[in-house]
């Protein structure tokens, strides 16, 4: 699979190694700020409150569909075989919004309802990285 994979591959950084390590184990983890609660994307110092005493929490993997697009023109050569596919922003049960894909064959607006319940599913793109994606419950 990894030899064929032609899409952009994220480069974990010191602040996100844990996030990607856990994703490889098919777990979704978030950072939590003592003032403003869970946030995405992970960084050690929390946005807005600028607190350093943040911690990692394990997310349930449950979410609802906040918004989406059905992409018909591949925005990168790696996605040519995927169109049409769904890019989405989902609202995690813990509160933060998260960018992702909705796993769905032949997507149409009729099949995609704002607020519909979703559950995380991990796509292992190589031996280091698994992308958290979401599918309808």
């Amino acid at each position: 699979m990894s030899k064929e994979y032609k899409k952009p591959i994220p480069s974990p950084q010191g602040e996100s190694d844990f996030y990607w390590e856990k994703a490889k184990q098919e777990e979704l983890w978030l950072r939590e700020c003592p003032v403003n609660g869970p946030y995405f994307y992970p960084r050690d110092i929390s946005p807005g409150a600028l607190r350093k005493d943040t911690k990692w929490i394990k997310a349930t993997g449950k979410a609802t569909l906040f918004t989406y697009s059905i992409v018909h023109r591949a925005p990168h050569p790696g996605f040519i075989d995927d169109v049409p596919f769904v890019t989405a922003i989902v609202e995690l049960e813990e509160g933060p919004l998260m960018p992702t894909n909705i796993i769905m064959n032949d997507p149409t607006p009729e099949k995609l309802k704002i607020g519909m319940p979703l559950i995380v599913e991990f796509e292992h793109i190589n031996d280091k990285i698994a992308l958290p994606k979401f599918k309808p419950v």
Partner: protein
Amino acid sequence: MSDLSRSVAIVGVAESDEVGKIENKSNLQFHAEAAYNAIEDAGMKASDIDGLITAGTSTLNTAEFLGLHPKYTDTTAVGGSSFEIHIAHAMAAINAGYCETVLVTHGEAGRSARNRPGGNMSDPGSQYELPYGFIGQPVSYSMACRRYMHLYGEERTRQALAEIAVSTRKWALKNPKAYMKDPMTFDDYHESRWISWPFHLFDCCIVTDGGGAYIVTKKEIANSLPKKPVWVLGVSEGHDHNIISQMPDLTRTWARNTGPEALKMAGLTHDDIDLAMIYDSFTYTVLATLESLGFCKPGEGPDFVANQRTAPGGDFPMNTNGGGLSYCHTGMYGMFLVLEAVRQLRGETGERQLDNPKTCLVNGTGGSLSSTGTVVLAID
């Protein structure tokens, strides 16, 4: 800020020698042609320029290329709105005494030297959005638009997008420099192919090559030049996110702050504005921006633009150059908003000329609906 109102003017504007599909020119050549033409339009000399601003490249590059030795420079680059924000920065620099006359240039072979994201995959957008295909602005903006549809109704949103696409094309047909030359009907809009649902092809700006430049100078110099100065009455800038999934409200841009603030500095209200130049990377950009600026309330945009109100002959003329949708969009289109605003106020726009406009509100939007620069201009 109010005491800076009318302290500086835009005195020269120009495009590069050509805009459109131009395959043999570099970014810097577009900068240089536009700079040459803007200096000529102002009736000035290169030696009059002592401040230099650009975005997308460093002023180290543009100054050397042009042989200028500026004593004040600024390379603020926050996307297509940068060139509205540069007006504010030029105003601040001139009033602080750092320089007297600022040249602002733009050049981008957006069509013929198109780049794709790659390289650094470590920043937040590259780690958390690009791997999912959030690449290029149609994807990001269409997700924001889908949220708007959810809140305010799919059918009325769709009609508003169509109204904006069709009215903007009507203006383009009156601009000889416009890339799109054919009329567009509502059916043409609705039948155009899907790029990124809910966006049709005709919801998206064109991608062209070109450059532009303008010159800002202090009042005393402006009054000594051959053309009537276009005064800067109000400015405001800011941003509240970078990548689309971090946008606090997908239906409200930072223009919610800059619109009221720029108008307040100008001492004007929305009703005083004769022409609106609103960054139209996408039809939805216009819808969200008009509401955010305060021309109408959230969700009322579809009523505001209904019945071709923004088209030639309508009572709210907007994007009279044909916009990024139909005239020219190099990548950072905000430069071209300024050029049209100045030309309309001077009465230089030929077939599309409005009847003696005195005021124009220019609003640039950059990134993923991320940054905003609002400028209010007027002519005596």
